[in-house]
C-alpha cells in the first residue's frame, strides 16, 4: 500500500526540483545533475527487498535552532507515517562527534542513512565509508564535498534565497538606498551563498547601482549577537533603508535593536527561514516585511527518498521510476500578501 500512497508532496518536490534545476542551472553548476539517476538505488536495498522493515538512521547537528529543530521534527514525522520504517534520529554536538556517531552507525548496518552534516567537508570521509560499506546516504542541506559520499542529495537553494531577497529589496527601494546585511555564521557555505546570490542579483536588478550595502556583519544566527551588531551599526549609520538578515530567529534581535533605537519607521527588514514569529510579524505589517524560505519539510522528503532507495524503488512519476541524484528545493518569497499560504509551513 505504501507504494500507491506515495506522498504527493514528494512528487511535487521532485518535479519542482527539476524545474528549479533548469532555471537555476546558469548560476548553480550542481543543478545540472539534478535528474541524474541515483547510482546506488538498485544496490543499496539488501534489507528492504524482502518486505521486512527498513531501518533508517538520521544524523543531524544539535537542533537548538529553529530551522534545524523543524528539520528533525519533520524527519521524525515522515518516518512515523510508514509502518515499514524503523527510524532512529541522532543528534551530535559537533562535527567530530557526528563523525564518530556515524562510524558507530555503519557497524549497525542500517538500510539507509540520512545525514545533515554539521560541516560538509569534515563529514565527507565518513559518508564515503558508509557508501563503500553499501549503506546508501541521503545528504540533506549542507553538501558533502565528494560525489561518492552520497547516493542522493536534497538541499535548499541558498543562492536563490539571496537572489529573492535582492529582488525584493531592489524593487521596494526602487534601486535607491542604504542596505545593511546581517549575515549568519561567517565562513560556512550557507552564509556565503546567501550573500553571493544577494550581491549578484542586486547588480542585475539595479544595473546602474543606487543601492549601497553600507554594512555587512555576521550575527552568528544568534538573536543576542544580532542585537549587539545592529546596535552598533545603528550608531555608525544615520540612514538605513533596508536590512537583509540571514535568519528569522537572529532577526528578532536585530528588530529589537532597531526598535530600542526608535528607528523602526526609517527602514524595513527581511529574514530567512519562515519562522512563526517572523510570519506573524509580517502579517501585522511594519518593520518586518518579508522572509524567504526553503522548506524544512525537505527532511520529510529525505526520509522518503532514503526509504525508496532502501527498498530499491523510485519515483513512479519519473521514467523509468528512479530516485533523482539531486533535488534542489526551491526558495519562495513570503510577504504580507501571501503569508497565509505559507503559514502551514511555519516552524517555531
Amino acid at each position, binding site marked *: 500500500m505504501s507504494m500507491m500512497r506515495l506522498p504527493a508532496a514528494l512528487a511535487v518536490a521532485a518535479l519542482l526540483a527539476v524545474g528549479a534545476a533548469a532555471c537555476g542551472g546558469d548560476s548553480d553548476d550542481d543543478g545540472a545533475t539534478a535528474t541524474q539517476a541515483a547510482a546506488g538505488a538498485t544496490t543499496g536495498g539488501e534489507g528492504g527487498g524482502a518486505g521486512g522493515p527498513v531501518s533508517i538512521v538520521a544524523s543531524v547537528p544539535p537542533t*537548538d535552532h529553529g530551522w534545524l*529543530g523543524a528539520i528533525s521534527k519533520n524527519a521524525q514525522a515522515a518516518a512515523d507515517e510508514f509502518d515499514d520504517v524503523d527510524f532512529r534520529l541522532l543528534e551530535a554536538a559537533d562535527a567530530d562527534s557526528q563523525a564518530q556517531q556515524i562510524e558507530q552507525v555503519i557497524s549497525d548496518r542500517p538500510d539507509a542513512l540520512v545525514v545533515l552534516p554539521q560541516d560538509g567537508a569534515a563529514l565527507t570521509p565518513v559518508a564515503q565509508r558508509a557508501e563503500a560499506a553499501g549503506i546508501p546516504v541521503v545528504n540533506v542541506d549542507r553538501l558533502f564535498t565528494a560525489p561518492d559520499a552520497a547516493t542522493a542529495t536534497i538541499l535548499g537553494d541558498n543562492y536563490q534565497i539571496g537572489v529573492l531577497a535582492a529582488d525584493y529589496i531592489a524593487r521596494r527601494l526602487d534601486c535607491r538606498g542604504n542596505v545593511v546585511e546581517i549575515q549568519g555564521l561567517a565562513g560556512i557555505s550557507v552564509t556565503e551563498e546567501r550573500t553571493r546570490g544577494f550581491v549578484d542579483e542586486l547588480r542585475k536588478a539595479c544595473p546602474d547601482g543606487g543601492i549601497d550595502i553600507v554594512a555587512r556583519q555576521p550575527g552568528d544566527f544568534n538573536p*543576542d549577537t544580532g*542585537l549587539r551588531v545592529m546596535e552598533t551599526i545603528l550608531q555608525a549609520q544615520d540612514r538605513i533603508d533596508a536590512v537583509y538578515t540571514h535568519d528569522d530567529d537572529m532577526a528578532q534581535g536585530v528588530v*529589537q535593536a532597531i*526598535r530600542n533605537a526608535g528607528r523602526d519607521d526609517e527602514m524595513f527588514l527581511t529574514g530567512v527561514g519562515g519562522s512563526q514569529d517572523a510570519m506573524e510579524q509580517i502579517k501585522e505589517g511594519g518593520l518586518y516585511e518579508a522572509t524567504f524560505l526553503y522548506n524544512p519539510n525537505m527532511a520529510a522528503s529525505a526520509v522518503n527518498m532514503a526509504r525508496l532507495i532502501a527498498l530499491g524503488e523510485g519515483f513512479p512519476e519519473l521514467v523509468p521510476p528512479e530516485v533523482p541524484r539531486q533535488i534542489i528545493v526551491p526558495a519562495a518569497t513570503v510577504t504580507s500578501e501571501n503569508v497565509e499560504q505559507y503559514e502551514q509551513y511555519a516552524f517555531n
Partner: protein
Amino acid sequence: MTTSPASGPGTAAAPPSGGGRARRLSGVRLQEYALVLVVIALFVAGSILKPDSFPTWDNVRNMLTQASVVGVLAIGMTFVIATAGIDLSVGSMVAAAGMFGGVLVDPEGSTLLFVFGALAFATALGSINAIAVAYGRVVPFIATLAMFSIARGIALLLNDKLPVGLLELNGGSFGDPAPFSLMWFGTGRILGIPVSVYVFLGVVVAGWLVLNRTRYGRYVVAVGGNREAARIAGVPVRRTILSVYVLSGLLAGVAAVLLCARLGSASPVSGNLYELDAIGAVVIGGTSLAGGRATIVGTFLGVLTFALIFSLMTQLDLSTEVQQVVKGAIVLGAVLIQRPEARL
C-alpha cells in the same frame, strides 16, 4: 598611598633608597595604567576613523550598555579566577536563567517574578558548580565544563527550544519603557544614563569594595595565592571557594536580566561564548589565571577594551576575517605593553 615614614629600626641596615612612588607603580598597578592607555588609544582611533559617529555621547552610552552584560559576568569571573578557578558555564547559565525566568512569567507574570526567577535559578546552577568544586573536589575546569553543557541543555529544554517573548512585561515598550518594566532595565534611562549601565557600574564598585576592602575579598585572593598558607592562617578555604561559584552564578542571573531586557525576549541560544569574553577581559585586565592576584579595575578596563574593539570594528564594517586578525593583534598588544617582565 601610604605616608610611610622611612624610619626603619635605625640600627639595622638602612632601608634601601630609591623612589618610593616609582616602586608602587609595579605589578598590578602598572598593568592597570597600561590598559588605560589601550582604552584611550582605541577611543582616539575610533574618533579619527569615525569622527561623526564614534566620539558621541550616544555611542559611548551604547558601548557601555553593550559592555554591561559581559561586564557583570567578568566581575564574577574575577572572583573565581582569583581563587585559581575558572567558570566556563557563565554563558550557558545566562541562557538558562533567562529561559527559566521567561517560562515563569509566560503567559502571565511580573517583572519582579522574572528577575527573581532568573537570579534564583542562576544562583542555583552556580551552587551546583560550587558544591562540585569545593566539596566534590572536581577540577573547576571540568565541573564548569559540565555545567556549560547542562545549563545549555536546560535552556533548550525549558521551552522546547523556543524563545519566550518578554516585551509586554509590566508595560514595557520601546523607546521609553515604564519604570520597573523589564525593558526599562535594558533601555530605560535615569538622567540620560541607561539603567543597565547603572547596574554594571554598581556591580563594578561593589566588586571592588568586596575584593579590596573586606575580609572576604582578602580570603578569596589568599586562597588562590597559596591555599595551604591560607588554611594555616585560618582562612575558611572551602567556604571561600564555594562562595565564588555561587557569586558567579548570581551575576550570571543579573547578566541574564540585562540581556533579556534589551532583547525583549529570552532565547535559549543566547550567551554563546560569553565565558570567553569574560575570561579574556579578566586576564587582559591583569588578574592572574594562576590565582592570587586580582584586579577589578583591570577587569573593568578589559571589558571596556573588548567593547571598544567590537564597536570600532563593526562601525568600520571590517570583514570577519580581518576583524579576527585585528582583534587578536590588539589583545596580544595590550598584554605585551602591560607586562614587559612577563615576556621571556
